[in-house]
């Protein structure tokens, strides 16, 4: 079978997969090894896809792959499946990893070692990287790395993630293990009857051409596994042997959880052997514990929650006001600046036009809140913008009157030329109230308003 040059080249570069429990520090390690900038955060489940990068150890070129975290090799979610497929050599271009780097959180050793025990049986060369030892030290605990390495049968390297301490040692260990892999321990203390039955069945299966890892056979013997059963359906003698062994174990009274429970017994034993606690009573609470105590407290937590919500509300409705006013002023200033450079349109015209828009918007809001149009007229007069001349008129429909009360444009001009003739008697005495509030001189206003297209004229309300 002829391999394409690309795959042949890729195959010559060793593949190293970084695996481990969620939130153990896999991506931090990946970033420091490869110089990438993958997203890291302090909670489980940040990485949901596999990511690869290149790493140079001396002259050796290594491809490194970062996968989502796993609690065990039996995946239940799709991101876990991604990781399991990579470990089994089905996920990443059908390449089996040449080396697994298992990241172990030293502050949560038992649960992490459970996963190591599963990996150890998956037959791959393995290195263990110990992270978060600084957290362990905060708890006044110490870990005996040499002892851990002896118990696991593989190299254990301590790495303190962000500081990059231990990265060089890890690179050396990767290089060393790629040349001469160490085989991890497989002694986890499973019951002897289970081990003999599993080994015998595995022997028979391999003779028949099935290659199942011992852990799969063990779990299938303890509790019926439909997938496993279906695969040996066609060979009756295998099926019989399997069913008989399964029944015998059930008669012995071996619970289905034996597989998991035994691994945890082992990992608890290892953790106890390698962790030296200084003095249990003097355990300090870490800063994170102290923050948690307040934020997740039944009473204080709720107070903090409502405080944060109140601040959010305030920041939207109160704190933002000066900012919004500043923006309005800024736009007005730009309007003036631009307007003065546009032929024909004076700054005031542009500004007035802007204000007209603003007010139309305001009046639309008024209509939304269903204010009586008559009231609106009064307001318009009360604000003394255009005086009695500008009593809005328009179509009879209430809504339209509120929304777009037109100003009779000629009436403004008329008002400028002609004092009082067109004023209704009611308002006759209020001439002095005209044209004051807009901030423009009457002359300016007149010029401005004549340039405003009729459609843009509205009630001027301040």
């Amino acid at each position: 079978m002829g391999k394409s040059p690309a795959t042949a080249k890729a195959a010559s570069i060793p593949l190293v997969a970084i695996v481990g429990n969620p939130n153990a520090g896999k991506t931090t390690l990946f970033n420091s090894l490869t110089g990438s900038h993958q997203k890291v955060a302090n909670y489980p489940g940040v990485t949901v896809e596999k990511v690869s990068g290149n790493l140079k150890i001396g002259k050796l070129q290594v491809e490194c792959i970062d996968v989502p975290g796993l609690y065990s090799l039996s995946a239940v979610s799709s991101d876990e499946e991604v990781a399991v497929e990579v470990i089994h050599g089905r996920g990443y271009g059908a390449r089996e990893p040449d080396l697994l780097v298992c990241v172990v959180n030293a502050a949560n050793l038992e649960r992490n070692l459970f996963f190591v025990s599963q990996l150890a049986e998956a037959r791959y060369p393995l290195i263990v990287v110990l992270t978060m030892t600084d957290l362990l030290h905060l708890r006044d605990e110490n870990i005996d790395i040499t002892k851990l390495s002896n118990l696991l049968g593989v190299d254990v390297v301590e790495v303190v993630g962000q500081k990059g301490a231990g990265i060089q040692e890890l690179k050396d260990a990767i290089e060393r293990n790629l040349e001469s892999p160490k085989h991890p321990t497989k002694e986890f203390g499973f019951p002897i009857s289970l081990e003999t039955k599993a080994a015998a069945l595995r022997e028979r299966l391999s003779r028949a051409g099935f290659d199942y890892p011992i852990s799969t056979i063990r779990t299938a013997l303890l509790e019926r596994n439909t997938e496993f059963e279906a695969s040996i359906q066609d060979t009756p003698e295998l099926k019989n042997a399997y069913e008989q062994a399964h029944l015998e174990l059930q008669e012995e009274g071996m619970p289905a959880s034996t597989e998991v429970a035994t691994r945890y017994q082992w990992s608890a034993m290892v953790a106890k052997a390698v962790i030296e606690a200084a003095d249990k009573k003097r355990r300090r609470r870490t800063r994170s514990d102290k923050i948690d105590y307040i934020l997740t407290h039944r009473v204080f937590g709720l107070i903090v929650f409502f405080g944060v919500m109140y601040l959010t509300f305030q920041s939207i409705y109160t704190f933002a006001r000066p900012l919004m006013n500043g923006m309005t002023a800024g736009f007005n200033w730009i309007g003036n600046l631009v307007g003065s450079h546009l032929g024909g349109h004076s700054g005031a015209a542009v500004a007035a036009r802007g204000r007209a828009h603003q007010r139309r918007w305001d009046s639309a809001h008024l209509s939304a809140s269903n204010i009586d149009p008559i009231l609106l007229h009064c307001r318009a007069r009360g604000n003394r913008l255009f005086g009695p001349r500008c009593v809005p008129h328009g179509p009879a429909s209430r809504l339209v009157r509120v929304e777009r009360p037109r100003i009779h444009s000629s009436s403004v001009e008329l008002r400028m030329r002609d004092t009082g003739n067109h004023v209704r008697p009611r308002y006759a005495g209020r001439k002095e109230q005209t044209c004051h509030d807009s901030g423009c001189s009457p002359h300016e206003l007149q010029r401005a308003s004549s340039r405003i297209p009729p459609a843009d004229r509205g009630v001027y309300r301040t």
Partner: protein
Amino acid sequence: MKARVVKIAPDSPKLKRLQEMGLTEGTEFVVNKVAPFGDPVEIKLRGYRLCLRKAETVGIEIEAVE
């Protein structure tokens, strides 16, 4: 408040996952925190903290430990 897992119902994938996370039969744990309405609950087991909804723990038998 300290308790011990007595029995876990077999044949449930969700409970299998909890066992793989260390909540096996015979494991002792401490109830750390309880949310305002009694659910979820944070427990401490095997040196780490685990947050559980009560619905996720159906099928686990526990007993109090003095």
